[in-house]
């Protein structure tokens, strides 16, 4: 019985070192700040909407909003920058959402760097592939 237990311990898949602690703390911090940024920008955009109301070109009533069709408001980075410079509520809110969408990408990038520092090359390769696929998806190269 005692022999069995030591054998099980030798075959354990739990890593004994403390690098896990450091990785967890950093990943957690990046996620927290990303989420706080997204919420602050989104909240500011929503406040702008309440103060300024729907802008020309936006749906003016709830009925109009709910009958929107897919692909009506295609957007791009330059369009967003123009909108934000004139404090257009929709574009400020878009920026908040974009920051939120970027948080998972950021944490995969962080993990990639941490695995490189740890010289854990199997996981460097894994996170590099995940990062590349994510990047393709975010620029809109993958998908319907």
């Amino acid at each position: 019985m005692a022999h069995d237990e030591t054998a099980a311990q030798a075959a354990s898949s739990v890593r004994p070192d403390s690098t896990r602690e450091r990785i967890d703390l950093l990943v957690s911090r990046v996620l927290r700040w990303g989420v706080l940024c997204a919420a602050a920008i989104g909240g500011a955009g929503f406040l702008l909407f309440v103060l300024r109301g729907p802008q020309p070109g936006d749906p003016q009533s709830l009925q109009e909003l709910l009958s929107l069709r897919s692909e009506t408001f295609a957007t791009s980075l330059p369009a967003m920058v123009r909108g934000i410079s004139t404090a257009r509520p929709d574009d400020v809110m878009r920026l908040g959402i974009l920051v939120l969408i970027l948080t998972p990408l950021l944490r995969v990038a962080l993990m990639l760097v941490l695995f490189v520092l740890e010289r854990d090359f199997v996981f460097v390769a894994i996170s590099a592939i995940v990062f590349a696929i994510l990047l393709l998806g975010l620029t809109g190269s993958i998908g319907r």
Partner: protein
Amino acid sequence: MAGIELFALILFFVSFFAGLLGSLIGLGGGILVVPVLTLVFGLDIHLAIGASIVSIIATSSGAAAAYVRDHLTNVRAAILLELATSTGAVLGALLAPFLPSRALYFLFAGFLLLSLGPMARRLGEEVPSQVRPDWFARRLHLGGAYPDRALGRVVTYEVTRVPVGFAMMFIAGLASALLGLGAGSLKVLAMDWGMRMPMKVSTATSNFMIGVTAAASAGVYFWRGDVVPIVATPVMLGVLAGSLVGAQLLLRLTNRRVRQLFIPILLIIAVQMLLRGIGVW
């Protein structure tokens, strides 16, 4: 105009519950947000999915900050399995024009229903015992430990049957690309049933992973305008608030209780998938 603001307020509260529930059981909250937007408000399904993708990422990043800090999330297993979900999603995106999505809904539903039995049988189990790590788990150091506040001790656990979990995650990725879902339910099953990880670790790790799955398809929806700011912003804010509360709750719940919560939700999702497959909704 006041109508839009009231709509946003209602959406905020619905999303709060979606975030609360989603962060507890490792799902994205799409199961609540999409039906409310389409069935109650009559919004176009594509715009509802756009909002649901935002809800998935918000649940994931919102709760993960707490789960990762408390070591409930298995970060190494997550990135390995994200390799499976993201390659599955790429294949899904490529195959989308050739595959009938109806059959997929049936497949998804059938799979969830089949898993109910094994799930229910383990209702009484708190932490899986007698788990022998397989070659992959040992080689990649996938096992972990977390301080369990409900049990008042550190739980050390092993991981096994990595290829089974990997294959299930590949299918989850395929399904999420084809059907526009987070497929969190499949992810939880892959870890809980497939790889024998503790229930709370499975939901926390699934919660961590769904953000990446959703972000991969978010770009398409975002740039083509299917993420409507005035719809998605209240969803984001509500879900974030809900997931912060949910994360504090999960740390204090037992694995048993989480499983009790998960089973009825699994049933609801299965029924939703069946209805979509039949074409009722």
